């Protein structure tokens, strides 16, 4: 690991100032220190934000939930209010990493964890994300875990988080604070597609720190499911995952919110898929049609071609589950 200066932020202002001056934020450290040991990341200065007062989860006046950026993945998954009213979020968190890691990993750090692309991790290889302009060997190399949606010819890495997929389905917003004050944005605005600049992963400004994630009030009368498909039954990143929040109105689907992990450079959501389902009676034909829409621009890269049929099958299985529809014989 390269040497660095360490500073502990005593308040938020000190933290945003340090970040504005080029320091890298460290929270749980479970992603950053891994990457620093490999010298994939080599910050000259670290600002430790773990003593800031961002450890609480509480209801907002509007009935939503405000989750402090330093709330650990364990605490959030075990929070009784989350378990009862936003179970898809507990389920997504519990499907990620391990007990030890979740005890350290924080809400803000989980959102901003970096990709698990092998070429990003291997400093002997070119990688446009790690070293802009050096090239991407994943496109022609090993790409079993890579993106089928939203990638570019510069980068086909996926975002690895489970938690962020559930948050995207729940219409979560992040609250960030910088020298210019506080602002809020949806996850679609937080993350950026790779395009020609895969090293720019978020829209956070230089001094900005994530202070909280805000969930709108719990969805009413909806079934919430998180399904993760992976190479092992525990302790592996998602090949494909689906977070679904679906409400019925009699025999018809009233509302469907669906987010996907393992498919793209950010937790993926596609409004057209949801609109194709809403107002319709559930059936296998309808689920196929929704899958066609989701995958209309899907592009396999070779070793990840299997993700296209896998995404379809996983989406259909989840839709059957949340609408209680039998699979055709």
């Amino acid at each position: 690991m390269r040497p660095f200066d360490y500073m502990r932020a005593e308040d938020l202002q000190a933290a945003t100032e340090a970040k504005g001056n080029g320091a890298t934020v460290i929270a749980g450290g479970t992603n950053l220190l891994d990457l620093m040991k490999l010298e994939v990341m080599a910050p000259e200065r670290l600002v430790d934000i773990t003593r800031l007062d961002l450890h609480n989860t509480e209801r907002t006046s509007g009935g939503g939930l405000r989750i402090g950026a330093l709330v650990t993945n364990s605490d959030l998954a075990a929070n009784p209010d989350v378990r009862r009213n936003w179970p898809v979020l507990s389920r997504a968190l519990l499907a990620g990493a391990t007990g030890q890691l979740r005890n350290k990993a924080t809400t803000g750090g989980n959102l901003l964890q970096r990709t698990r692309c092998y070429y990003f991790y291997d400093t002997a290889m070119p990688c446009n994300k790690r070293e802009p302009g050096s090239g991407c060997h994943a496109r022609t190399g090993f790409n079993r875990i890579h993106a089928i949606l939203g990638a570019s010819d510069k980068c086909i890495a996926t975002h690895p988080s489970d938690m962020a997929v559930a948050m995207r389905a729940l219409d979560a917003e992040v609250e960030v604070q910088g020298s210019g004050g506080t602002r809020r944005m949806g996850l679609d605005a937080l993350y950026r597609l790779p395009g020609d600049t895969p090293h720019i992963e978020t829209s956070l400004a230089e001094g900005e720190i994530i202070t909280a994630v805000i969930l709108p009030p719990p969805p009413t009368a909806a079934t919430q499911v998180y399904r993760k498909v992976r190479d092992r039954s525990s302790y592996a990143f998602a090949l494909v995952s689906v977070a679904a929040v679906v409400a019925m109105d009699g025999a018809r689907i009233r509302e469907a919110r669906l987010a996907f992990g393992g498919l793209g450079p950010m937790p993926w959501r596609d409004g057209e898929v949801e609109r194709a389902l809403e107002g319709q009676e559930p059936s296998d034909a309808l689920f196929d049609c929704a899958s066609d829409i989701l995958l209309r621009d899907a592009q396999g890269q070779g070793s990840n071609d299997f993700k296209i049929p896998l995404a379809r099958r996983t989406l259909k299985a989840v839709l059957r589950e949340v609408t209680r529809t039998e699979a055709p014989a």
Partner: protein
Amino acid sequence: MQTTLKINGESWTLDVDPRTSLLDALRHHLDLTGTKKGCDHGQCGACTIILNGRRINSCLTLAVMHDGDEITTIEGLGEPGRLNPMQEAFVRHDGYQCGYCTPGQIMSATGMLDEVSQGWPSHVSASLEGDVPLSREEVAERMSGNLCRCSAYPGIVRAIRETAGEVSE
């Protein structure tokens, strides 16, 4: 940098390079070599310790981040001649072969049983609410962050379930 750690009830002040992981601080600066280094990347669990009541991977955190924090290592649970019930159960059930992963397994299991007693669900729990019976499947899921190259898993699971009072031998 000066850092004070409360380890197994005793206070230690050390002067470390900020790069020092908590694991290296324990092993190299304090001679507490019970805690093991396997992968050094959060993947194997050999370095598991209990920090402020929670099990964590000591390889993926910096010593300087833990000024004033309370740490329990395997030495703090018990030592030869005065083993605690979990340590004894590992011996009785052959919960190891080479023993390298064992301190991490025992620390992780100790933290895990505390999580269960607080009613925390797991990925394999059918319901997110209510009591969790500590089935073999629950133990396997909750302990998946501790790898054992000797594959002593059957004994590990038995030792943990017996200590939790789920099975009697």
